């Protein structure tokens, strides 16, 4: 039995400003980091199959560095080590959010590059050949032929990455950025009511991830081209008629 779950304290925590701000901060940081990571990751993925050896070497090196070292170490390095290497990073312009954003997006880009590479590889090479035969340029082939098909493969693991990243933002506590989990910790130390304080944070995380899952489901539907669900909504036009 829940002998001492104080619903009042729980609601107070749930509706308090630090929680809301913390959740918003975690979400913002996740969104911008993942967004930039997707862009960097896309070019890294392309770089993996570049004709230039040094580009391939760079991508290999990048992925090696950012996947082999802990995210926490990368955060601390950017926040504490950079200012000692270049004093300019000690300035007040270098905000904790900016540092966390740089660390998380660089880190995430390494993972995204592998996910995007898997997506690009999933498209049959014959498609590119066919598109080239039609006289399409390389960027156009990417945009019109390869990416739309690769995206279906990319979306589910990217949802995973979003969730992982959302939870990773709590690491930014070490560089004085106070997101949702920190808000819960601080709230708990005020009146020592842990079930309520942590429970409220739990609700926020669940809410954010639920919304994401709904968005992901929509996106997946949008990029499906052979499923029954999609065909029902867009019936095959009358072309079939003439073919008979």
């Amino acid at each position, binding site marked *: 039995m829940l002998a001492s779950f104080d619903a009042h304290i729980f609601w107070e925590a749930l509706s308090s400003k630090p929680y809301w701000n913390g959740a918003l901060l975690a979400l913002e940081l996740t969104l911008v980091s993942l967004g930039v990571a997707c862009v960097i990751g896309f070019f890294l993925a392309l770089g993996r199959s570049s004709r230039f050896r040094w580009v391939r070497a760079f991508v290999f090196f990048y992925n090696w560095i950012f996947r082999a070292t802990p995210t926490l170490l990368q955060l601390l390095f950017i926040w*504490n080590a950079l*200012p*000692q290497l270049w004093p300019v990073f000690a300035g007040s312009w270098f905000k904790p959010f900016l540092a966390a954003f740089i660390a998380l997006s660089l880190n995430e880009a390494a993972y995204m590059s592998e996910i995007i590479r898997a997506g690009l590889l999933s498209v049959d090479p014959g498609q590119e050949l066919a598109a080239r035969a039609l006289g399409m340029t390389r960027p156009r082939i990417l945009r019109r032929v390869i990416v739309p098909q690769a995206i279906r493969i990319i979306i589910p693991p990217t949802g995973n990455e979003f969730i992982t990243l959302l939870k990773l933002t709590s690491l930014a506590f*070490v560089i004085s950025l106070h997101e949702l989990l920190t808000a819960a*910790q*601080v709230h*708990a130390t005020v009146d*020592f009511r*842990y079930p309520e304080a942590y429970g409220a944070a739990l609700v926020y995380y669940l809410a954010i991830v639920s919304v994401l899952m709904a968005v992901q489901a929509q996106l997946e539907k949008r990029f499906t081209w052979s499923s029954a669900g999609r065909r029902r909504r867009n019936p095959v036009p009358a072309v079939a008629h003439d073919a008979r």
Partner: protein
Amino acid sequence: MKRYAAPLILLAAIAALAVVGTAGASHQVKSPVKGSFRYCSDPTFPPMESTTTAGKPTGFDIDMANAIGKFWKVKANFVQTAFPGLLPALSAKKCNMVISGIFITPDRVKSFPAVSYMKTHRALVVQAGNPKKIKGPNDLSGKLVAVQAGTKYEEYLKALNDQFKSAGRPQFTLQSYPGDTDAVAQLLIGRADAVLTQDTSGAFQKQAHPGKLALAYLFPETDSFGIYYRPSDKKIGVALRTAIKQLKKNGTLKRIAAKHQIPVSDVK
């Protein structure tokens, strides 16, 4: 300094052993625990507690915990815990008591009783030469202040910032870090203008980083460091009070204070 830490600790341990040994002989001491007790501590607050480069806990609180253990004739076991998690760990029975340079405050005492063992002042630590000319809390307006998260310092600074706001003065940027040493590091990196901490910590850091830090201001009020225990553990409370009284009387605490460069007058 660190090079001499190991022999110093050994020396102090021998000294503490001798002192407590005689004290134990003359008093019939009953331990409130069997065999050993565990104390939660966040070793990021030298000279009260920190870790050596080899990762061993050291500091006033560590020596005091061992002295209490010797006094009760039991073993004192160190349980590393982050500062915001100290009292939660106590309530979750991860340890029997909290010995971690933690203040006795009215709202904490509402949940957990405490035994006081030291009275000290809060201090503003700045970079050597005080480049931002900080002479008191009023001068923090518009600056960047670093502090340990979840502490009374942080609470005070937030309130001070609210005062600045209502007075129409520029607020300071407040950065809260997991450890006290992390906050002081921001001064050494050159990011923070001031750090609010205890004079004990400030004096230690100043000595640990010669020519880099300065104490800009000492708050006139004193704070009590206390050992927190669970309200249900009345036996531990009584035994702690006796132990602290005895260790003060026989000079053990003063000796430990001197060893860690803490003013012996703080032990009261």
